[in-house]
């Protein structure tokens, strides 16, 4: 393998890896405040992409993306308020089954609204064939958009959780829910907020990646599986670890083409998920001690 080809694979792997990490971060935000895995996370990504494609028919691209993100955030809030908020002390299993049901529901509604056609947003800059050459490697400008936007999301999230009072309150809910309530924090509002936040992040990711990966009514499922694998691989609830784990999975997938047929690419991530769940359920970077205290 030539050095150029190696780097080409590496760039492709990192790009997909970052997309997976963003989905995984969406999982983590909701997991941290509620203790559940929101299996409708992939659908938020799909909704963001689809809504933006539709809106792009009526308005310029940047406006379409902003509105699509806002619409998806509103859907996230609605989903939480209608299906989750009113439950009194629901079990983890019950909440998870609700989110699985939600993901099917959203997918079917999307099928009715947008039919089965595969869509995509136009490239943000340039076209599908334009590329930037960096040291003999050809990189599509959209890849730079993906990496740039995702990096910004991670930085802003970090700032939000460590430096703002609302971010602190969300962390407090994940650390000790009852103690947070005794501090006068409305845990329910924090849960709604976590759904809004992860819906927004998912939608933004959906918009940025759609020129590369395309988007279809059911494209959320695949992303959700990859994102879930990455979240588990990094250690549930740990967003920084999710980025590292995402890039790791993306690069592994990318180089797997080298040794086995492309069709087995998805099998690879499922195998990794199974191995991690058997061997080290706390994730690569998670602490076993903390994991043993978690309900799920």
């Amino acid at each position, binding site marked *: 393998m030539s050095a150029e080809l190696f780097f080409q694979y590496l760039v492709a792997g990192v790009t997909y890896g970052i997309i997976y990490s963003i989905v995984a971060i969406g999982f983590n935000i909701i997991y941290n405040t509620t203790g559940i895995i929101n299996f409708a996370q992939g659908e938020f990504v799909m909704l963001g992409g689809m809504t933006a494609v539709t809106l792009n028919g009526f308005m310029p691209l940047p406006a379409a993306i902003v509105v699509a993100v806002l619409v998806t955030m509103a859907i996230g809030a609605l989903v939480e308020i209608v299906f989750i908020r009113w439950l009194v002390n629901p079990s983890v299993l019950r909440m998870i089954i609700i989110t699985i049901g939600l993901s099917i529901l959203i997918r079917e509604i999307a099928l009715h609204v947008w039919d089965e056609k595969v869509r995509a947003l136009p490239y943000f800059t340039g076209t599908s064939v334009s590329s930037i050459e960096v040291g003999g490697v050809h990189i599509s400008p959209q890849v730079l958009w993906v990496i740039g936007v995702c990096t910004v999301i991670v930085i802003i999230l970090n700032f939000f959780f460590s430096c703002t009072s609302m971010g602190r*309150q969300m*962390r407090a809910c994940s*650390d000790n829910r009852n103690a947070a309530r005794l501090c006068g*924090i*409305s845990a329910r509002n924090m849960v709604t907020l976590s759904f809004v936040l992860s819906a927004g992040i998912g939608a933004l990711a959906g918009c940025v990646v759609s020129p590369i990966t395309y988007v279809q009514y059911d494209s959320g499922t695949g992303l959700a599986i990859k994102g879930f694998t990455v979240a588990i691989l990094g250690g549930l609830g740990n967003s920084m670890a999710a980025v590292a784990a995402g890039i790791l999975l993306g690069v592994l997938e990318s180089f797997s083409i080298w040794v086995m047929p492309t069709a087995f690419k998805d099998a690879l991530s499922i195998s990794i998920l199974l191995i991690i769940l058997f061997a080290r359920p706390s994730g690569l970077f998670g602490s076993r001690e903390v994991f043993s205290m978690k309900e799920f």
Partner: protein
Amino acid sequence: MLKIRNLEAGYGSLTVLRRVTMHVSPGEIVTMIGANGAGKTTLLSTLSGLVRARAGEVLFSGRDISGLPPEQRVAAGCSLVPEGRQVFQTMTVRENLLLGASVLRKRGEGSKTGEELDNVYHLFPVLRERQHQLAGTLSGGEQQMLAIGRAQMARPKLIMMDEPSMGLAPLVVKQIFFIVRKLRDEGITILLVEQNARAALGIADRGYVLETGRIIVQGPSEELLANRDVQRAYLGRDLDAER
């Protein structure tokens, strides 16, 4: 300040509190003593809103709060220092204290957060020293101080404390109880739930004895300290042997 009438509460089919009636007047330190399983923690959980009351009335400053969720009770000025401290382990000491002040903004007193933080640091100098440390790395006594400081950040009228002496060395217990008295001197009313009956009655104005969910004895602390049943059951005096 706090008036409770015929309060009943429990979990599932289990009734823990039976017709509990008590009151706490402004500026008092009132203690509730009782053995393990008497219902002390359940009482405080019910008063703070974590457990729903089945029947009865809870009046706080003349207002019925029995239907309010915990966050609104804190906003009304009724804070709980929960059993086992329950500090936010993965967050720093300073963050823990700032979270305690969450209700100040809702009350429109957000500007007083800094002032109150200084106040807490003044009362607990060790917390200022450790302000950037994770709360989970503190010793038991320091965590208890942090839990009290966090409750104080909400500028409450009443602080309820659930076994602040639990698992602490005698010297640290002394320190904590000294602080409880200091808080009262600053105008905060205290409801202290304790297993350490002697120490609790030592600083309280009045006391109640809870047994299997019922209040069996009540009165001024000196009276309870002199009560033969209380002495036998809670103060560890073997009266027969002394005779």
